[in-house]
């Protein structure tokens, strides 16, 4: 770990903070285009955050300290997640702090806090949202772990940095297992980020919402932080997906050139990814809440299959 490494780490975090709302805006824009709507401005999320920060917090009478504390924790968790996922470089000082398993743990921690906060006021929708979020979570989490296991077995490591290094800088080998893992990962990301087949971030339709139901009672800076954290989560998942399945372009070591090159590559990859995400969302319909377990169960199965394929076909590779 070096001073410059530390600087780059900080830069990665700041970049994440900055890029996350942009990614959300970009996805929204793409979606609007594909759905023949007039698109909101690309910077709309920033405006929203700014406005929300300006607003007073209106707190329900029954809210406890946990309710006020939770947005910060969720935000903190997402910052940490973005800090350890190699976006630009694999040589991050914070990377050893948490490997992929711990990364799943971070997401889990955030989920627990947001669900608990949702139950805190004691409204019907709040607890409904909390319950559904945990439902999605308990199915998505193991699937994600299995995806990670598949990659971890290839690289003999659970450290994200090592995985990326292995995958990106070895001779190019086709791993069939990675295809399974990739599909599973896509499924999981949709569910985790409250995207269409499972949830719809753009509606408040009471009977179907998950994420929005949980944050109904939030306002002002709390809501801003949660929205920001949601953006960060999308960013983190995207970066994780890119790092696992399309790792090329991420710098190894802290050579200035490599790092500088990594920024535009990342932006480009994110842009493509975001557009794809919007596309998939647009061609799909939201499923009933009880189809979500099937959807995620499929993801889990794919992930396990990936693992088995890895063991069956590739152990001697």
């Amino acid at each position, binding site marked *: 770990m070096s001073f410059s490494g530390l600087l780059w780490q900080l830069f990665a975090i700041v970049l994440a903070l900055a890029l996350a709302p942009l990614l959300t805006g970009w996805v929204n824009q793409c979606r609007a285009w594909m759905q023949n709507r007039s698109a909101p401005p690309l910077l709309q999320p920033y405006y929203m955050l700014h406005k929300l*920060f300006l607003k*007073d*917090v*209106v*707190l*329900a*009478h*029954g809210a*406890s*300290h946990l309710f006020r504390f939770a947005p*910060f*924790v969720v935000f*903190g968790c997402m*910052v*940490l997640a973005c800090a350890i996922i190699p976006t630009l470089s694999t040589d991050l000082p*914070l990377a*050893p*702090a*948490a*490997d992929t*398993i*711990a990364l799943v*743990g*971070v997401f*889990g*921690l955030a989920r*627990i806090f947001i669900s608990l906060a949702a*139950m*805190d*006021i*004691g*409204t*019907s*929708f*709040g607890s*409904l949202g909390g*319950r559904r979020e*945990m*439902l999605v*979570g*308990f*199915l998505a*989490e*193991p699937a994600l*772990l299995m995806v990670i296991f598949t990659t971890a*077995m290839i690289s*003999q490591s*659970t*450290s994200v940095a090592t995985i990326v290094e292995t995958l990106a800088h070895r001779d190019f080998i086709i791993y069939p297992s990675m295809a399974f893992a990739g599909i599973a990962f896509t499924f999981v990301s949709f569910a985790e980020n409250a995207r269409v087949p499972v949830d719809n971030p753009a509606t408040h339709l*009471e009977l179907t919402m998950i994420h929005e139901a949980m944050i*109904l*009672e939030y306002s002002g800076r709390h809501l801003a*932080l949660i929205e920001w954290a949601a953006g960060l989560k999308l960013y983190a998942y995207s970066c994780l997906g890119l790092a696992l399945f399309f790792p090329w372009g991420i710098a190894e070591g802290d050579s200035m050139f490599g790092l500088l090159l990594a920024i535009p590559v990342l932006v480009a990859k994110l842009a493509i990814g975001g557009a794809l995400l919007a596309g998939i969302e647009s061609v799909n319909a939201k499923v009933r809440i009880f189809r979500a*377990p099937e959807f995620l169960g499929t993801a*889990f199965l794919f992930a*396990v299959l990936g*693992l*088995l394929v890895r*063991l069956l076909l590739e*152990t001697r590779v």
Partner: protein
Amino acid sequence: MPALLPIDVLLIAACAWLALGFAGLAAPRNLFFISKILFPLGAAVGVLCGLTSLRFLGESAQVAVLAIGLPDLPFHLRLDNLTAVFVLLLGFASAGISVFAAGYFRKGEGAAPGLMCLQYHLFLASMLLVLLADDAYAFMVAWECMALSSFFLVTTDHRHAEIRRAGYLYLLIAHIGAISILLSFGVMTAGSGDYSFAGMRAQALSPFWASAAFLLALAGFGAKAGLLPVHVWLPEAHPAAPSPVSAMMSGVMLKTAIYGLLRVSFDLLGTPLWWWGVVAMSIGLATAVFGVLYSTVQSDMKRLLAYSSIENIGLLAVALGLTLIFHAYRMEALAALAMTALLYHCLAHAGFKSLLFLCTGSVLHATRERSLGKLGGLIHRMPWVAWLALAGVIASAGLPPLSGFVSEWLLLQAFLFSPGLPHPWLNMVVPVAAAVVALVAALAGFAMVKFYGIIFLGQMREEALKDAHDAGPWEKAGLVWLAGLTLALGVLPSAVIGYIDAATRQLLGAGLADKVREHGWWMLAPISPERASYEPLIFLATIAAAVLLGRQLVHRLYHGRLRRSAAWDCGYVFQGPRAQDTAEGFSQPIRRIFEPMFRMERHFPTIRDERPYYSVKVEDHLWHWLYLPLARLANGVSALITRLQGGRIAIYLLYSFLTLIVLLLVARP
């Protein structure tokens, strides 16, 4: 005067616990004396035990022979590193529980305090003796004393029929388990008649008999630990007991069963066979899935925790199985990893599950309510308990940065490196097991959110909850101690592994400590940092920094204004407490997804109902598939045999006559 050896200190501690118990009997109704003097002293003894074993860990074994026991088999005691790890667990966990208990017992509740004091300290002393015992007789005596004293504690409030039933079931299964353990010991002596553990170690058993011994031990200790299918007592007994006792049973007593399994399979039996591990792992997985699923659908807070204990025991059995597999194939580094996960999870579970049970105790005291359907919103009235319970909940859900995550992380790491096993079939199965473990961990989160959210968050479901009060100073102290342990185990894994490594090394001949120490005390990297690493302190610091910095920045750049208003709830007007999810409602998705796993009796309201209601009762399939048929069978046999006693004297004479004639005709020297 020779220096006091650690084993002597522990013996003195056991005697001290006994003495404290009998001191309580001297003044059975003097609540102040018992709760404010004896129980804190008991806690001090617990700390002493913990510190002694900390000091001891890493040293070579010490033995002692007491002058009591059978004529040719006096009590052998032995303190080695495996024992020391569990004594550590016992000492530190019991210290917190004892302090809590000092504030918990009140006047006019259940049995006389003096009696409770005796049973409680007897329970502690017998657990210590279980860990120290080095021959079958001493072990069985201590083991059954432990069962007995805890049985009496469970049935403290024996006026309720269901508590008596729970106690009966508990003691019955404990006894049957004990019989199985005794048989296992018997097999291990291999007919030499030497029932000291040293004698058993010296035997070289054939694979068949070694397997028999292992399976018997698994059944016997499994009955104590709550492994499927002999788990049925656990969800009955834990809720029935007073909360400190539930905490002690769940946090500490279940671990003695794990201790026994470790002792038998690694110490007494020598080299394991690979399929033992598969058996242990399969049972463990089934138990874990069963436990966590049932835990999510409970409506009684202590039952929920009890099922969660079953889940954790399942995970421990999985870790045990994995260790056995690795050890059987001489992959000692990986075996050490899995065993470290196992021991770590023992410690972690002792901390967080005791903490949670004690929290339910405080809630129970404040509200007199155990049913989740009648609680809610207690974070406002009981902030201490609520915030400390949060630590337990996070740890129990296996989330960073607390203790539960570390052990889960280690376990998953062990799974991850399982390929390379020489057995292709195993190679395939083991990762699937890892998937199940992941599923279980995630479901545990579901259960814990339910537990915490419904008890502490939301609106109060009953009017009376407004009078709830926070825990008293003693209770708080106990909770803080255990929460502190949970946190310490969460953020200082390398240091802790440095201690428990001695036990791993003793059992497997390999350990993690050297590799872990290489990379500094803040980093946990069991193999190498390139392969996997976890730095909980930095992890925690980063999140904390983000939280604080975020808050400061937001407040500095914008403002910190806040006002209160009614909740929004999509404009829905009727926001009474009944609009919230009930305990049953919260778990509805689980019941629906895993429907075949449960035996449900549901009542749905119809249009014609005058007073419509909905109810659901979840029961255990195994109870109906295994236990009731067994009971019917025994009853049938017994009905058949009772016909012997028909009351007619001529028939009785006939028996006698026939016996004589048959013997005369058949028996020949």
